[in-house]
C-alpha cells in the first residue's frame, strides 16, 4: 500500500478522472467545475447587475457540494496520503525555472515564490495571482467551460466546440509560458 503515498502515475490518475466524470453522469449530473464560479457570483448578488447571473442557483447546489468534496479531498491528499509533496518535474524544467528565479522548483508542490504565505505582502506575486485568477474565471465562462467541462466532458462526448476551446487553452498557455513569462519573471 506504500504506492498510495507516492505521487500517482498518469495511468492511474487519468482513468480515475474519467471514472469521476462517469460517476457524475450516473447520478444525473455533468462534470464541470467552472460553472460554480458563476453560481458563487449569483449567491453574492450578481443577479442584480447582469442578466447572465439570473438563474436559480439552488439547482446548482449539488456542484457546490462537489466543490466542498474537492476541498476535503485536497486536505486528505496532502495531509493524510502524502509523505513528501515536492513535485519531481524534469531536470530541464527545474533548471529553466531556477533561471527565472523559481528556486523552489523540484522541492515544493507549489512555487513558494508565488504561493508562499509571505508572498501575500509581495505586490508582484499578488498581481500574478490576481491576474491569473481573473483570466481563468473570465476565460472559462467566455469559453463556456474549463478543463473539466471541455477537455474531459466535452472531448469525451466528441464535441467540436470543446476541441476549439482546448486548442485555445493551449494557445493561451503556450503564449504565456514562452513569450510572457520571460517578460514577467
Amino acid at each position, binding site marked *: 500500500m506504500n504506492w498510495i503515498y507516492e*505521487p500517482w502515475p498518469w*495511468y*492511474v*490518475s*487519468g*482513468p*480515475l478522472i474519467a471514472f*469521476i*466524470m462517469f*460517476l457524475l*453522469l*450516473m*447520478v444525473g449530473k455533468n462534470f464541470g467545475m467552472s460553472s460554480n464560479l458563476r453560481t*458563487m457570483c449569483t449567491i*453574492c448578488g450578481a443577479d442584480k*447587475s*447582469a442578466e*447572465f*447571473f439570473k438563474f436559480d442557483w439552488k439547482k446548482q447546489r449539488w456542484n457546490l457540494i462537489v466543490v466542498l*468534496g*474537492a476541498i476535503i*479531498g*485536497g486536505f*486528505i*491528499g496532502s*495531509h493524510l*496520503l502524502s509523505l513528501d509533496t515536492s*513535485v519531481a*518535474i*524534469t531536470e530541464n524544467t527545474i533548471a529553466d525555472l531556477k533561471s527565472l528565479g523559481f528556486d523552489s522548483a523540484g522541492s515544493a*508542490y507549489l*512555487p513558494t515564490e*508565488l*504561493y508562499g504565505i509571505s508572498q501575500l505582502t509581495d505586490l508582484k506575486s*499578488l498581481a*500574478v*495571482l490576481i491576474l*491569473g*485568477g*481573473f*483570466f*481563468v*474565471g*473570465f*476565460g*472559462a*465562462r467566455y*469559453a*463556456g467551460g474549463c478543463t473539466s467541462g*471541455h*477537455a*474531459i466532458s466535452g472531448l*469525451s462526448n466528441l464535441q467540436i*466546440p470543446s476541441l*476549439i476551446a482546448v486548442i*485555445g487553452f493551449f494557445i*493561451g498557455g*503556450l503564449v*504565456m509560458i514562452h513569450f510572457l*513569462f520571460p517578460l514577467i519573471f
Partner: protein
Amino acid sequence: MRTLSYLLIGIIFGITMFKSEAASWFRIYEMFRFESFHMYGIIGSALLVGIVLVQLIKRVPIKSFYGEPIEFTPKDKSFSRYMYGGIVFGLGWALAGACPGPMFTLVGAGYIPILIVIFSAILGTFVYGLLKDKLPH
C-alpha cells in the same frame, strides 16, 4: 443520500487532483514546455477511457443510479467564443497554474494564497457576465 454521493465524488476528485499533481503549478508549467509526458498522459488516458464510457452510455440503454435517463447537452455551435475564451483561459491557467477544480483542492491542501486566485476568478466571471453582450460569441 444524493448529497452524500456528490460529496464523495468531490472527495475522490480532490484526492485525485492532488495526488496526480495536476493541481501543481509546476506540472502545468512543465506541460506547456512539453518537457514531460505526465500531464498529457493524464488528459490522454482520461479522454480515452472517457470516450469509451460515454459511447457505452449512449449505445447501451443505461439509466442513472436513480433510474433517470442520462442526457448529454451538445455545446452550442460557434468558433469565436471557444477560441477567444479558450485563449484567455489558457493565459490564466499557465500564470496561476491552477484551473477551477484544482483551485479548491489547493484550499484543502492549505495554500492560503490560492484564495486570492479563487476570488479573482469569481471576479473574472462577474466581469464576463457584465460584458457578455458586447463580446463576440
